[in-house]
């Protein structure tokens, strides 16, 4: 099978770029720890309200962990608990969330805090709130008629 010289060059450059790109992504994920949100913890979706930490939604200071706070969210059609929360500026926070019914999204608009909440699973993401302001949390996965009304507010305050 014949291959044109220019095509060989084109593919060599292209594939090299691909290898570099994937290496960067891989190093970032497994050396720097920038993995997409994922948590292999399961939960009975019918008993969310009675189980820790979801029996106490909201912001909690923690000691002796890599992060300073845990922000616990419970989603259900069509609201989040808590509906509003204040987070101190610069805090390193682990956001832990789950859903009681259908699939919901959890996105802090305009940031890369973005995860899916699926019944039976806990999802979490660790982040540092280093910009003050008021942030909208929206459900970005279709969950029914009230989907576009489902939101929460995070205020990052000094």
């Amino acid at each position, binding site marked *: *099978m*014949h*291959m*044109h010289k*220019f*095509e060989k060059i*084109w*593919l060599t450059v*292209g*594939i090299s770029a*691909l290898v570099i*790109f*994937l290496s960067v992504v*891989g190093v*970032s*994920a497994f050396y720097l720890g*920038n*993995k*997409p*949100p*994922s*948590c*292999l913890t*399961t939960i*009975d*979706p*019918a008993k969310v309200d009675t189980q820790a930490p979801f029996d106490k939604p909201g912001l909690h200071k923690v000691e002796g962990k890599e992060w300073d706070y845990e922000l616990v969210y419970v989603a259900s059609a069509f609201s989040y608990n808590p509906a509003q929360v204040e987070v101190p500026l610069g805090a390193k926070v682990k956001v832990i969330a789950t859903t009681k*019914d*259908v*699939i919901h*999204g959890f*996105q802090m*608009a*305009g940031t*890369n805090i*973005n*995860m*899916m909440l*699926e*019944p*039976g*699973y806990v*999802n979490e993401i660790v982040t540092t709130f280093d910009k003050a302001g*008021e*942030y*909208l949390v*929206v*459900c*970005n*996965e*279709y*969950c*029914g*008629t*009230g*989907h*576009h*009304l489902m*939101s929460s*507010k995070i205020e990052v305050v000094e």
Partner: protein
Amino acid sequence: MINTASEKFKVDPRDAKIGMANFYVAFTALTLGGLMGLLQTLVRSGKFELPWGIDYYQILTVHGVLMGLVLTTFFIMGFQYVVVSRTAGTHSKTARRSAWIGFWIMTVGTIMAATMVLLKEASVLYTFYAPLKAHWIFYLGLTFVIVGSWFAGAAQIMTYAKWRRNNPGKPSPLLSFMAVINTVLWIVATLGVAASVLFQLLPWSLGIVDTVDVLISRTLFWYFGHPLVYFWLLPAYMCWYAIIPKIIGGKIFSDSLARLSFILFLLFSIPVGFHHQLTEPGIDPAWKFLQVVLTFMVIIPSLMTAFSLFATFERYGRSKGAKGLFGWFRVLPWKDARFTVPFLGMASFIPAGAGGIINASNQMNQVIHNTIWVTGHFHLTAATSVVLTFFGISFWLVPHLTGRKLTKAMNKLGIIQGWVWLIGMAFMSGAMHFQGLLGGPRRSSFSTYGDSAQALEWIPYQIAQAVGGSILFLGIILMIIIFVNLAFFAPKGEEEFPVAEAENPDESAPMIFENWKLWLGITVLLILFAYTIPFIDMIQNAPPGSPGFKTW
């Protein structure tokens, strides 16, 4: 007068009938689905409310199912069926019967699913979203669409196999080979969604079982959901690789490389569904990363395709005496709708593909996942690159099949149609991309989220989307005028079914490309490699199942 040469290249009228039957359904879906799309953009502008208690998510489901499943599947099955007939020879009686059975099963399934959506029993969008529970007739209807498409695909495989038997040791006609690759890809991919619907969603919606495993249903769906987009794309590639060169009067750059790229698409489009599930719980990040790497392998055949196409254009231009680095660009036949409209599709694939790289990236995905950026992305890929190419194909294929001619007036209208589409999409898709970067969610009705400052910033983009949507709807009206004209009213005559030849006819494609045991074997191995362990994990580590919900 029909001479023998043109008779040889004419699609058998009995096969043409099947092609046209599929196109009638496809273009009906385009009309209704397009109207729903227009209404959605109007609702999201905040200036319009749906009358008669119609729900936004209901029309969203109609739009998604009609455009993403009905328009595409029917058009592709019709197109590939006649492509095989044209290049590998008339279908046998058995193959033709299979194609008709497939067509009717698909049509009945479509009507069943559509009825349940219209009755508001199935506003679950087209990705299903268990544990949202639709009426069982909806799921059964979609099963029919898939099973019907297997019958339709079997017809192509039968005729291809017959050609191989009659021509031992010779590489099959390029377009037939490509059609069969795409059919095989489709069959392997739909096994996933068929398994989910048959073993999970149907028994559950019928009340035979109480709960559903959400993560498994999503994984099976996305096992199908990504190759699905390649199933849409490959027919467009067939046109770009093997038909456009003939239309402009050039040659296929390399027959062998075209085949190789199609095989790579088959191998690397299926074991990659996790990149749609990057932000989901329940899947180990290492397995997600593995599928991200496999996802990026499709960049290689994409680069090959880009090279071949532009090489064909440049060589043709230079043969016409074009000078300079880009002189060939000007001598291309811009006044021929059969070229210009697919070319606009091709050109939009450059930004569209770049957006796809962002979507599938391990970490960048978090910025845009489930934002309206994604909607913008697939309106640039599927709804521009693919759909404009399908329109370009219709301009000659419909008159060819109905024994009519593409008149000058229709050709001109075709070019106008292509530009109207591109402009409309630039507004709509462009605004979606920008709004997505600001965090605007997809699949959502109009909302200011209690007048939140962030949400108010999104509204101007939504108004731009409504402007784009209105222009696009105008494009749909133009396309329907052209289609109806070419199907029923254009003057009788003959329209060519263009099939290009390879630049170097002496170099025949290596027979290893048609070694199905080898390629299917590698496909299966890759799928097992990418899915087995995560799947065992999901089953062993499964949470209690979910009961059904009807939240609409």
